[in-house]
């Protein structure tokens, strides 16, 4: 599967959840991309070793006028470039913010979020039960924002992994 990640998803997975190793393993079976703008946004204020971002391959997103109009003609956000790339390259968009998810839904672009990726990594055997509980603890202890709905989804993934 091909995925293109938005900035907050990259921050959550790398900085908050410390999943570099697991993502590297996941990338052997899947294509993990970020745009140049997302890389810049991640590195701006990055609190960990900046090289970890290389777990994602850099992709070349082309300005899409059709998408730009939904961003009020402003191409300065990483989210715009992520959605543009996803739309034009048949790639799943990994996005946690409501605006982007609503837009993907409206434009018929396939999307998931950080929690969806965590679940996919679990299903493909790249995350153990212990990893999942560690992830949940790290997210809950962090100041990083994740909607209640996504936190609930994470809880249910942890619960289902306990049963299996």
């Amino acid at each position, binding site marked *: 599967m091909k995925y293109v990640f938005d*900035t907050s998803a990259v921050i959550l997975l790398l900085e908050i959840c410390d999943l570099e190793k697991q993502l590297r393993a996941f990338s052997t079976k899947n294509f993990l991309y970020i745009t140049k703008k997302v890389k810049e946004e991640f590195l701006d*204020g990055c609190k960990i070793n900046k090289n970890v971002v290389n777990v994602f391959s850099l992709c070349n997103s082309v300005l899409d006028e059709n998408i730009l*109009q939904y961003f009020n003609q402003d191409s300065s956000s990483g989210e715009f470039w992520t959605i543009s790339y996803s739309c034009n390259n048949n790639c799943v968009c990994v996005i946690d913010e409501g*605006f982007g998810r*609503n837009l993907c839904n*409206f434009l018929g672009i396939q999307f998931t979020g950080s929690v969806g990726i965590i679940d996919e990594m679990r299903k493909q055997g790249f995350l153990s039960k212990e990893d999942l509980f560690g992830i949940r603890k790290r997210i809950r202890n962090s100041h*990083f924002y994740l909607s209640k709905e996504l936190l609930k989804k994470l809880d249910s993934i942890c619960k289902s992994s306990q049963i299996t």
Partner: protein
Amino acid sequence: MSEILDYGLDSPTRAFLVLILSMEDRTRQKAMNKLHYQKTLYYFEKLQQDKEIAFSNFKYGGVSYELQENMETLEESGLVTKVGTKYVLTQEGEDLAKKLLSEYNEETLKKLKYSKDLLNDLSDKELLFFMYMTFNETRENSIEFENLEKNKERWVKNLFHKGRINSATAAQWLGMSQRDFLDSLSV
């Protein structure tokens, strides 16, 4: 087609009013008050990059008297009725809206629906703040912007939580970094 002409719905302004009232917003509500239909069609025009409807910047930002007059005409002709402060289509209006759909291309209708989904369930203050911030020129003669700005953190967070703006826009509107904005949400 003759019914469309009879009611003057060959005019885009009038037709867009009927169409926007025929669509459900994300809370499945069709009714719209004056502020919401004005702002939704302003946003739609920007999205279309069209100038079909004339807008001017008044006390509450971008407003169109052309829209207001056409809404009154639709009310007089029985296609629209007012329930409290909100406008809704009558059955006759709904029937005509169905016929009108075939007169417009899918892209236009999609943008109309997107505009209504984005704005119609916002409170008046959230809506005004969103419009003033998105289209700076509409602040020109505003009597509300200054007051709204005093509570900008509240409006920005509401709009972000409702998925109407992204964190990059929110941070820009609050004059902080994107990371600081995201951190501020969980405190």
